[in-house]
């Protein structure tokens, strides 16, 4: 039944053009644009790094947040408000199976996106291959886990289907910008840097940079890992206390 639902989730995702473009194509598009704009090397803390690498890591982070946080929040709120979730509740499909299928589907989509980013980087922008492959795969899972937690949490708080993509983008784009997804953030003024210092994406990008560029283990920076997990867990706690299958009453 999990596979049945997963197949359905995939079919629905790829058939719905807006979702497929916004979730899957958009980060790849941004990578192409930014990769063409930035010069070959970027200076970070006095060290010169290929911009294609920095951007690949940055858009990997943005992609994780976009797919798992943005995508899940939009899907779940949309389905809840038109009564799809409610309808499922009276069928024998166990809620846990449903959630598991939705999460696996998200993971699958982001894994494909990560592969596409790496291929695009390798063959178009001459970016490096991940230095630690295992860690890189781990980062895919970690990113989806953290941002899926936040996505479900957000879905529990957002009350209307009309508002959800606005809310998601108002959160997502500034977060990605501040965390350095779209380019180095070393020169940001103090206030912005201070905000960036609490965002999950900032720490997730530190981890991604570690495994992707420096070949570090996923667990090399316990503080960063801790912050990322804490954010995911916070989202999960909100979801567990506030999530509803029923549409908001008109």
């Amino acid at each position, binding site marked *: 039944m999990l596979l049945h639902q997963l197949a359905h989730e995939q*079919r629905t995702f790829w058939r719905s053009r807006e979702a497929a473009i916004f979730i899957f194509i958009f980060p790849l598009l941004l990578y192409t644009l930014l990769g063409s704009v930035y010069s070959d090397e970027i200076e970070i803390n006095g060290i010169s790094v290929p911009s294609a690498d920095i951007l690949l890591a940055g858009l990997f982070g943005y992609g994780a947040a976009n797919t798992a946080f943005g995508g899940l929040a939009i899907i779940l709120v949309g389905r809840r408000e038109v009564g799809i979730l409610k309808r499922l509740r009276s*069928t*024998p499909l166990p809620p846990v199976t449903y959630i598991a299928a939705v999460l696996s589907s998200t993971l699958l989509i982001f894994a494909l996106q990560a592969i596409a980013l790496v291929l695009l980087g390798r063959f178009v922008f001459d970016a490096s291959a991940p230095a630690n492959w295992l860690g890189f795969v781990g980062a895919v899972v970690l990113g989806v886990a953290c941002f899926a937690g936040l996505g479900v949490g957000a879905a529990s708080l957002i009350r209307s289907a009309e508002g959800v993509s606005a809310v998601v983008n108002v959160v997502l784009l500034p977060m990605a910008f501040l965390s350095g997804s779209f380019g180095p953030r070393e020169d940001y003024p103090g206030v912005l840097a201070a905000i960036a210092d609490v965002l999950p994406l900032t720490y997730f990008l530190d981890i991604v940079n570690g495994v992707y560029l420096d070949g570090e283990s996923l667990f090399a920076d316990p503080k960063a890992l801790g912050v990322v997990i804490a954010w995911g867990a916070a989202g999960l706690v909100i979801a567990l206390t506030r999530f509803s299958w029923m549409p908001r009453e008109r």
Partner: protein
Amino acid sequence: MTTAIVANDLHKSYDGVEALRGVSFEVQAGEVFGLLGPNGAGKTTTVEILEGYRTRDSGEVTVLGHDPAAAPRALRERIGVVLQQSEFTPHLTVREVHRLFAGYYEHPRDVDEVVQLVGLEEKRDARVKTLSGGQKRRLDLGVALVGDPDLVFLDEPTTGFDPAARRTAWDLIRTLRSLGKTILLTTHYLDEAQQLADRVAVIQAGRIVSLGTPAELIGTAHKAEIRFEMNGEPVVVQTEDPTLTLHELTSEALANGRRLEHLEVRRPSLEDVYLDLVGGEENAE
């Protein structure tokens, strides 16, 4: 005959608004039971408590031997639900939606058979977003039937149907009945309740104000009316025994050489009974 649904003294308030004030009824297995009432009477609240979507404040409920508040999987295997409002993923086809839901059940019906049963075979491969409102409603019905349920809940199943589609839906509900399904349906339409339901409960402001077969509801306490015009004046005579009264009236008119213009005998319709029941309670809140 076994009892499919027992509701006993159900109460439910939504912050201050008393939606149900002691609703009790039983539905026998194989029966079509109609809940008839105006907007806001408490039909959806009652049905959704039975479906397990809403919690009751007090009262007892048993659906196919289970308490729906716990919504055990064994119960969900055996019920089919048409919600008053719901949609499906717009990008799937009619057949795909049916197949999706069929996958949730242990013993589903054949998907194509169900698509045909609800009259959507021509739309089998059409995307949900291209369906008309009435066709979407039929899709709802098909999805409710695909698990081959014993008990089907239909919350206003024909609202938004054109007259022909309504007839088709009625035939379908009769077919379900002949298959031995138990059906609980809500409706605003008297003719629908009269046509389909073995028994009807009229619900008004959270109370059941009348319960019985359509014939019983019409029969209770209501007289026939004889109307005619004499010398241009309308006359209305109410009577328990229309045959006798009519005989007396016509003999007298014949004897006096007068005519009873526009003579008609009216049995009260369910509508009269209903408006009587519902209208009388309107200001009682």
